[in-house]
């Protein structure tokens, strides 16, 4: 078996395991919905029977949501152990979940396969594995998963699994099926240290935006639910997407999304600058409104708008989240549509 064959085999295996992980994560969401439903049913029965025990069960679920709903207020005189505020939400519900653990384990396995695929591809090519569309997609999705794993080690965002891993499965599967190219040497234009830096940082920025995107999507759903309920009775379920009840509230999701997105924004700013420095060396000008430059600029401005929206009355919350979602969509557009269909100097798709 050649290195390239090993790489391809590992990559397809990774796609398959990601798909399984996605199923496990989705299972967890379904379980959460079912639990909420059960708890509500029990509560209704309790209402009738005035059973205190059942109320408690609902309360446990509800308090997870409620605790994060308001800023943490400690009652006077109660000493509190030091703890990270990020440990707050919904954990009780998720810690017990076997499907969630299976999802994370499968994600780690898939990530390792993915990593092997990426590294062997790089060794086979004798260069960094990000020099054409196929390789951009492979490394970019690897970074999305890496960032996701790093983030869930710090904050329990495992509920994002089905969004993030679902996205990765689709992107990686599509890219492998449509963008695959054999290993070819670098054209002279790409023979530069900036290929290593510029493209890598761009992919890293994309990875953070992807996590932020997933958080913003959940935030929008959660925000819609909260608005409909007037945020008073988190136990009242609203038909579909009952699992939302077990997730952090919209404000916390927004804060998390913001923290992830500003890291992405820093990397994106650096990408823009590194790209300009490279453009000066390769093309003789640091900025020339090439289509790819235009879209990188547009994305930068959208996320700048997102950061400003957080400090503008009436724009915090759902509108800011929408901007983050538009921003990530523009990143995807920049990657797929601009690379493949637009004419420009960044013609390195290899297709």
């Amino acid at each position, binding site marked *: 078996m050649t290195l390239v064959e090993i790489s391809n085999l590992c990559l397809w295996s990774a796609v398959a395991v990601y798909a399984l992980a996605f199923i496990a994560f989705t299972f967890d969401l379904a379980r959460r919905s079912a639990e909420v439903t059960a708890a509500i049913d029990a509560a209704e029965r309790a209402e009738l029977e005035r059973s205190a025990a059942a109320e408690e069960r609902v309360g446990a679920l509800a308090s997870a949501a409620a605790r994060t709903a308001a*800023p*943490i*207020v*400690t009652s*006077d005189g109660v*000493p*509190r*152990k*030091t703890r*990270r*505020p*990020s440990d707050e939400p919904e954990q009780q519900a998720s810690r017990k979940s076997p499907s969630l653990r299976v999802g994370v384990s499968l994600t780690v396995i898939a990530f390792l396969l993915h990593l092997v695929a990426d590294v062997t591809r790089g060794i086979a090519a004798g260069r960094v594995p990000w020099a054409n569309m196929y390789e951009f997609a492979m490394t970019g999705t690897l970074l999305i998963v890496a960032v996701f794993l790093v983030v869930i080690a710090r904050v329990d965002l495992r509920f994002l699994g089905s969004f993030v891993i679902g996205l990765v499965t689709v992107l990686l599967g599509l890219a492998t099926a449509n963008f695959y190219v*054999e*290993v*070819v*040497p*670098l*054209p*002279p*234009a790409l*023979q530069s240290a900036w290929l290593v830096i510029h493209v890598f940082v761009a992919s890293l920025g994309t990875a953070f935006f992807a996590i932020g995107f997933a958080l913003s999507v959940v935030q929008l759903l959660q925000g819609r639910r909260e608005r409909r309920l007037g945020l008073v009775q988190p136990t009242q379920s609203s038909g579909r997407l009952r699992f939302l009840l077990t997730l952090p509230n919209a404000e916390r999701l927004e*804060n998390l999304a*913001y*923290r992830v997105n*500003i890291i992405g*924004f*820093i990397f994106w*700013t*650096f990408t823009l600058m590194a790209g*300009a*420095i*490279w453009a000066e*060396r*390769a*093309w*003789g*000008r*640091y*900025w020339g*409104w*090439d*289509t790819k430059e*235009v879209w990188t600029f*547009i994305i930068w*401005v*959208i996320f700048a*708008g997102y*950061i*400003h*929206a*957080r*400090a*503008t*009355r*009436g*724009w*915090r919350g759902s509108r800011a989240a929408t901007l983050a979602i538009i921003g990530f969509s523009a990143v995807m557009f920049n990657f797929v549509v*601009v690379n493949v269909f637009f*004419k*420009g100097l960044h013609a390195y798709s290899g297709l």
Partner: protein
Amino acid sequence: MSRPSDHIDSAAPAPADGINQPKLGFVGWLRFFWRQLTSMRTALFLLLLLAIAAVPGSLVPQRSSDPNGVTQYFTDNPDLAPILDKVQAFDVYSSAWFSAIYLLLFISLIGCVIPRTKHHWLALRSRPPRTPARLSRLSAFERRSDDSGATATELIDDATKQLKRQGYRVERYDAEGSASVSAERGFLRETGNLVFHSALVGILVTVGFGGGFGFSGQRVLVEGQTFVNTLLDYDSFNPGRFFNESELAPYKLTLDEFGVTYETENLDAYGQAIDYRAKVTTTSPGGKPQDATIKVNDPLRFEGTDVYLLGNGYAPTITVRDPEGKVVFSDSIPFLPQDAQLTSLGIVKVPDGLAEQLGMIGFFYPTQAASKPPFFSSYPDLAYPVLTLNVYSGDLGINAGAPKSVYALDVDDMKQLTGGDTGVESIELTPGQITDLPNGLGTVSFDNVAANPSTENYAGSVKRFASFDVHHDPTQLWVLAFAILALSGLITSLFVARRRVWVKAVTGSDGTVSLEYAGLARGEDPGLEAAVAAIAEAHSPTPVPSEPEGRITP
């Protein structure tokens, strides 16, 4: 510009019904517009508008980056193109409307930076505020008791030292029976924010005015040719607004050899160029010749200019003789590559010396692979080079003095003599061959320029050309400096947490001292609680005991 995150814009309070507002005078209106322009809402609107306005420039070819695409667009969409041109759709990024958006945005930004710099300057010089009476109301709060026997003042002395070490600015507020320290940190956040936005203004100004001092010029050189850095010697030249011709140092640059390495091992990339090297000799005015190599991604920085290698191709050497055998034309003509295998297209114009003016449209195939027309090239290096020529005679249209592109032949006033529908086959030559022109006009030869011409090995039989861009931009480094400043400002403004922290010691009636620690976020500060807890932990390691000490348990 982003307000400090502790600031949330509020709309002006709506006037209550029935209240007659005073009439706004001219100054009043100006002030009103200025307020509107510098409000966060407007800034956000302008940002989003800027993003949207940048989109069309990626959908329609731009004159600045793709002039040929624009020409093509006019040909393909003869009805739509003039309309688009009216709204400057082919010059989006220098258009009036795009400029209006970013100029308004920057005015709004400046209108925001200046008052905030003033505000920040004052904040930097002010002392941390008085300790609030009820610290327990703050979101981050810890309470501990002290059993070390130290007095409240001593404990707060310690806390003050500790906070100072951690980079807090501190101020003591002691009162009867209690002592407290008020501390504040993270002013760098706003400093970074202001630096970031000022640096953006710096970039805009430098690009806007600085670009006027530079120039860029293009020159195609065939191997062996020399270029002198003077205005006349450029093929095309774009001076900045303030450019002065005397700034050009008249150095010489000779293209000695253009080397290309092709991939020959990897069959998936067989024939792909993996290296271009332009070996040149440079001579400063009054200096000695020096050798240098210019590569893609590796420009030559010389005499205040940057010389970039942009394109390359073949330049077949063609000689035309009259019927008596006298040379009337001999030159190496750069042929423009049409595909990856370097099938190349070139134009030969012979204005003088023959009975009629002669124009030839030539195709060059470095490795011609077809047994009969249509020809194609299967490899970009010189394995079996073939040149085909379609000959036209008549008026080249260059006598009137109007400039004509050397890469195009206007055949309106010319008659085709070979190829196409003429029934006469195109002229077909390999290096070293000579053949008769139609109608007894003379002969044309495709010269083999190799040191040892041979028909076995065509390596080196055809010259190559390289196209160079020569740039001078004195402000480039300034832009870089501002960009680095912007990035560091951005990182600081997003990651430095600005917070206030208070430590208060209250002596109780029984003489015990209880300690309170509290923090207040001034903007995004996800680590506030942890920070307050850590301060408490370092200052007073024992949390409040839940039971009174010394109780006797049986």
